[in-house]
């Protein structure tokens, strides 16, 4: 009996000891869901996956808050820190929508922290690529070219927002000296231009690569940055080399910008999209066609199965369609659309004032939903009220019995009134009317980073800077002809104004205007109180739009706006200044 117990004890002890020796190795586990550093750089497929992630840092322009709501394009009705920006009362510690922690905005494409994380991703790739598992030199060059393009793109966003920034090309370790100061504006421009050129040299000459960077994209980026460098804001800022050129030859900068644009034009790969007969339809489809076409240089694509969080119809559409009316066009933008004959719209002209949506630039109809415009069939509860699918932003319509009814797509309407816009206009550009946006269905229309029209406009602007007005007019008129608008013949200051308006209209909502008004140094002119439209009408049948008459239009105030010169640049976040004593804040913050 006792022996048996002793044996059992011994067996238990031995078993434990044996078990433990096996266990000791069992503490050497590896994560089951991650890939090691060494494995990644040996495997071309994994390197590609790594590169794929970096592209996401370019983001896109169709988040819930659009950049247009920070300038005189749209009014974002839900706040989210946009009011502080249009009132120019942001500071380094309270930067409104530019502050950390705001989601659903395009701002992460420009925000200090996220962009530098992306730049580090590129730096890691460039550090490892030469000794990697990609043995084919062409393939390797492709990856490198894309990486250089991405690095140039990220820095160009930083440049636009902050001016000169620390140029970081190495992969820092924790114990490195991390207190890096800012490079000058000029150094930053030169760096981006060189990066873009390196990318262009490495990348294949092909018009487009369905989402990836190409030589054309790199050259278009270079042209954009050189145009920025030649602009007023930086050329007239000699006091602070972090945010402008202290001197130098501005004409040479215009020349470089023009040549860079010309390089893209001379590739012969791109031309303006002109596939639809009707100019309204043509400009609409330019943005809605999925896939790429002759005008597109680079895009960001989406797939329905991925549910990318891309739903501009829901975010911006009318509340009468159960959409959220987020970014709503303001009256000042509507007024800047020319008449179809090329003359300016004028509230002082009784004919214009009586029927403001008649005979306008075709792009107006393709970009903006206004009262009386056909959009799409309403969802059931709206269709019962308004069966024709026509936008109603009138304040009230008076019926024969004297009763008055509010427009369905206003804040007085019966459907989600609090989600109604103030301005009387809704976004049309990029919105696919074949989709009921109020459901979880998402549209998969791509976002365009670079298209040929911008290159032509960049070329025109540089030409004006050089006084080569004929070239400018020719480029502008190409765009106007495609848009269904008559040619211009202006010269001098008038040409410059005309050009700026053309760029405003053609590139509207495409994340250009916010930067353009800064580099043109016209903040104080455009940051004025935002206006909308007040519309009254009479009708014999509320549901039949053809019976409406006696419209009365009056521009009204909708949002407080203002300007301070410090808003030409975004403040470097207060936290970052506290971390790094070598960082100099932007002027007047």
């Amino acid at each position, binding site marked *: 009996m006792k022996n048996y117990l002793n044996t059992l*004890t011994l067996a238990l002890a031995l078993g434990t000891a044996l078990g433990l020796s096996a266990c000791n190795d069992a503490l050497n586990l590896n994560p*089951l869901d*991650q890939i090691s550093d060494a494995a990644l750089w040996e495997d071309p497929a994994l390197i590609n996956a*790594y590169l794929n992630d970096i592209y996401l840092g370019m983001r896109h322009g169709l988040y819930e808050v659009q950049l247009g709501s920070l300038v005189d394009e749209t009014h974002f009705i839900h706040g989210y820190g946009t009011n502080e920006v249009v009132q120019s009362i942001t500071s380094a510690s309270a930067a409104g929508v530019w502050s950390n922690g705001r989601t659903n905005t395009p701002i992460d494409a420009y925000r200090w922290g996220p962009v530098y994380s992306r730049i580090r991703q590129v730096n890691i790739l460039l550090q490892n690529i030469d000794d990697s598992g990609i043995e084919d030199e062409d393939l390797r060059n492709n990856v490198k070219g894309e990486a250089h393009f991405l690095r140039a793109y990220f820095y160009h966003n930083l440049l636009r927002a902050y001016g000169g920034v620390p140029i970081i090309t190495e992969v820092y370790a924790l114990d490195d000296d991390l207190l890096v100061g800012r490079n000058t504006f000029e150094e930053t421009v030169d760096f981006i231009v060189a990066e873009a050129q390196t990318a262009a040299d490495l990348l294949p000459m092909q018009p487009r690569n369905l989402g990836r960077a190409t030589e054309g994209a790199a050259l278009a980026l270079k042209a954009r940055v050189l145009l920025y460098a030649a602009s007023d804001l930086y050329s007239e800022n000699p006091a602070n080399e972090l945010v402008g050129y202290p001197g130098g030859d501005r004409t040479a900068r215009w020349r470089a910008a023009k040549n860079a644009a010309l390089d893209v034009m001379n590739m012969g790969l791109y031309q303006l999209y002109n596939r639809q007969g009707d100019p309204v339809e043509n400009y609409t489809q330019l943005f809605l066609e999925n896939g790429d076409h002759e005008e597109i240089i680079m895009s960001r694509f989406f797939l329905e199965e991925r549910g990318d969080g891309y739903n501009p119809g829901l975010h911006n559409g009318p509340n009468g369609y159960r959409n959220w009316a987020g970014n709503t066009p303001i009256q000042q933008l509507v007024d800047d659309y020319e008449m179809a004959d090329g003359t300016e719209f004028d509230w002082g002209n009784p004919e214009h004032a009586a029927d403001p949506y008649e005979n306008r630039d075709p792009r107006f109809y393709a970009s903006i939903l206004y009262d009386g415009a056909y959009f799409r069939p309403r969802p059931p509860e709206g269709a019962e009220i308004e069966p024709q699918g026509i936008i109603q932003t009138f304040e009230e319509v008076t019926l024969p019995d004297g009763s008055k009814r509010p427009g369905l797509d206003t*804040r007085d309407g019966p459907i989600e009134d609090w989600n109604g816009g103030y301005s009387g206009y809704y976004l049309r550009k990029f919105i696919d009317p074949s989709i009921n946006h109020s459901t979880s269905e998402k549209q998969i229309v791509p976002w365009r980073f670079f298209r040929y029209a911008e290159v032509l406009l960049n070329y025109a602007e540089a030409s004006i800077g050089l006084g080569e007005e004929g070239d400018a007019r020719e480029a502008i008129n190409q765009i106007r002809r495609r848009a269904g608008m008559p040619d211009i013949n202006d010269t001098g200051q008038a040409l410059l104004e005309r050009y700026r308006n053309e760029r405003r209209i053609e590139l509207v909502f495409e994340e250009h205007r916010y930067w353009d008004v800064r580099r043109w140094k016209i903040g104080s002119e455009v940051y004025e109180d935002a206006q909308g439209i007040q519309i009254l009408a009479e009708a014999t049948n509320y549901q039949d739009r053809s019976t409406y008459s006696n419209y009365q239009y009056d521009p009204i105030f909708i949002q407080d706006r203002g300007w301070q010169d410090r808003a030409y640049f975004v403040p470097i976040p207060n936290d970052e200044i506290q971390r790094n004593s070598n960082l100099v804040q932007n002027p007047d913050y």
Partner: protein
Amino acid sequence: MRTLRTPLDVRPVLLAVFFRTPLKALFPSLLLVLGLWATGLQDVHAQDHTVTGTVISADDGAPLPGVNIVVKGTVTGTSTDLEGQYRLDAPSAGDTLVFSFVGYQVQEAPIDGRAVINVSMQLADVGIGEIVVVGYGTQRRETLTGSVSAVSGDKLEKAPSINLANTLSGRLPGIVTINTSGEPGYDGATIRIRGNNTLGDNSPLIVIDGVPDRSGGLDRLNPRDIESVSILKDASAAIYGSRAANGVILITTKRGRIGKPRFTLDFNQGVNQPTRIPEMADAATYVTMLNELNEYRGLPPAYSEEEIDNYRNSTDPWLYPNTDWFDETLKPYSMQTRASASVSGGTDAVKYYISFGGLTEDGYYRNSATRYDQYDFRSNIDGRITEALTLSFDVSGRLEDRNFPTQSAGATFRMLMRGKPHLPAYWPNGLPGPDIENGQNPVVTGTDVTGYDQDDRYYFQSNLKLAIDVPSIEGLSFTGNVAIDQFARDRKFWNTPWLLYSWDYETYDAEGNPVLNGASRGPTEPELRQWSETGRDILTNFVGNFQRDMSNFSYSALLGVEYQKETFSGFTAYRRNFVSDQIDQLFAGGRDLQDLSGSATAGSRLNFFSRLNFDYQSKYLLEFVGRYDGSYIFPKGERFGFFPAVSAGWRLTQENWFRNAVGFIDELKLRVSWGQTGNDRIDPYQFLGTYAFGGGNVFDNTNVPSLFQTRIPNPNITWEVANQFDVGIEAAFLNNRVFLEVDYFNNLRTDILHFRNASVPQTSGLSLPRENIGEVASTGFDGSVTYSHNTGSKFQFEATLNLGYADNEIKYWDEPPGAPEWQRSTGAPMNTGLFYQAIGVFSDQAEVDSYPHWEGARPGDLIFEDVNGDGVINADDRVRINKTDQPKWNGGINLSASYGAFDLSMLFQGAAGAVQYIQTQSGDFGNYFKEYADQRWTPENPDAEGPRAFQREEEYWIANRNTYFLRNTNYLRLKSLEVGFNLPVRLTERFGLEHLRVYMGGFNLLTWDKFKLMDPEARNESGSYYPQKRVFNLGITTAF
């Protein structure tokens, strides 16, 4: 569109049937079978000497039924009957009988040839005499040198909470509980031992029957299965080494005792309701505030005075509703039911405790889809194979069945908080009204009309233990233990469209009734997502124990080794575009846009531990504890750590000189401990440079994978170390009627694993790993005093007050070097925040002009203090508030009394020193607190206490955190109350019952606080959460 619950789910029906009778018979019959089986196990021995007698309570002279009587050193035993009488055949007339009964001191009586032995049992002393469960063993309270709080399971039963964690509130000194939600299935409390001690994870280690960190935790254990809960608060927890730094909660379940089978049945029925529902503004006030918003924006008013009056007077329920959203959505009360049954008993050879439990709990919503059902069983069997060999086999199983609507409680309560009082929840004809957005009308989203979210979790936990008393060496024993736990989870999320009705406020039909338009909301077509997860946890250990008792001196040594391995894997599948909502199975969904994903993790730990105890005359006590612990979380060189602790005790009352000097003190012990424990609760593998899969990207119209670097590796990452010092005193006086215990602690947590992101510039682009960089000191005290009055009379009374204070200070961590002095967090408690100081409201423009203000400030805005006096209000004016949502003071008063057949138990619980930020999502998209509306500034009321109506986050004083919205949450509440009545024995015996008790009580019955807006334990800043529960309960329990 409306779908009923899936026809395959029969459990609700079963449960309903069970609680409505026929199957109720199953329980007794099941118990009968078990009882018969158990009875059959009783040994039959040759009898030599017969003893009879009566056992009474020394207290009141009443006979005690169910007292265990064993012949010492044998397997022979019996127990007293209902009259307290027994009859026992002992092997010889020279044997000794051992009498034991719960709550009474064990008594031995030598037979000495007597035929009748009557015994009077003494009540056990309060506190000092008890056996306390400590790591890998038990100790007598009197010789304990560590700081351990313990509570017995029968106390926890008194709180009618569905969740065990909530029953610990206020029970034990030094324990902080915060119950942040009452949602069935997620209504637990976060438990902290001596407050927060680290910047990372502060949750204590939970050890259930010797197995650390068992899946499912303690929340869902059946309180009636709990023998005791011990909390190791100081370095004595070092026996659990690397996971002990936040304290250890040891839970021991009941086991069988020698005696005849004892059956218990308990059934209780409760109703629950929210402790507090926020009061929101009414329709007239709300639309008035909307008008004010327009006025501040320079826009014309949206509502005329006439319309506002119509809302105020509710002239027309169609046109001018005045909706109380909470009232429309929530029932006045919901039902909860709990039933349990157990049988326990045994012989010297086999002891058993077997129990079954079931409970069901309904949600607050009217027609609630939220419901929690649970079924559990436990079987703890001890078998004495030979004199020296004991085998224990424990098995427990549990099914947790959580049912929810497809919209989360957070979403539904968010819409309740936002609920606009001028919109109808239901139209007067009974159809559901419109949503604020996303179809989320809360009266609908709390029901099963939107589909269902069913989450079933299965736990199977087993423990096999072999204990050997080595016969050749006296005092040497070994135990080997294998615990295998298996966990599985099946979740099914079936999301279907639902209908809401809107009206254009214009169209009427021929009879003059408004024409409503119904529209489908939610997903366009039904969609289904399913998850399947499994986990396994295997623990093996081997422990040697050696104990020697000499006349003056005794010592014991424990040495053990333990290995634990856990694995987890799971996958999920999704399809949408179901052709119909009639079949909620994956195959019936469309193949387009289907989605699949999966994941897996694994972990392992290995450790060696030891405890040495020395005891001189039970006067001087000394204990060493050490654990050498290895974890897969850290790199090879840093993997193992050694965690030692030493503690000592001095029982002054064992000194003659002391006893002579201070006679009224029955017991006085001083003890002190110091030691180190570790914390490894961080993401594993931070020493490796790894890449994880991101969300992918789209090139060439195809989905391509994407990879990103998780973080830069930290090759030196290792344990967080808790240096724990504790000094305590335990005393009993006034004939052991008063028991006092007080501890002071001083902990220094070093090598805290935290990020250096406050000082590393973002330009580096680094995603940082955790580093061993933080240092936090915590100090405080906790203690309890118990008064017990139970001599002689029918009246018994016991009162315990416990109180704990814990505060902490960051000694070192990463801070931005350029931050102003007054904002530095080093030197402040952890997790504090920076707030602008709201010092009032600008009553008019003159006041705005006269004080530095935020750009764009206007009358009615909050005044932020210009703290640094530079004439500008900016981030530098924020100050650090040294309070967090973690209370510094916690305590409870526990009263229990009995008089004859009646008994009463009451627990008051309170917490102080915490603050909560609370700010509603208000403006045109949501309602305001009534209190806020009442106090607001308007041009007509310029001297108002509160700021003007605000729109979402548009005002600077909404977007920037400030002290106006920071509220004191000190509270005292009647946490639980139970009154019981025991049927007189002469009645119960007529039914053949040992006893029958009827009881009623409640949980969270009364609350005193100044928070007022919501429950003071609310931890959701916008109030969008499922509120805490108040329970009224009625129950019956019987034993036979």
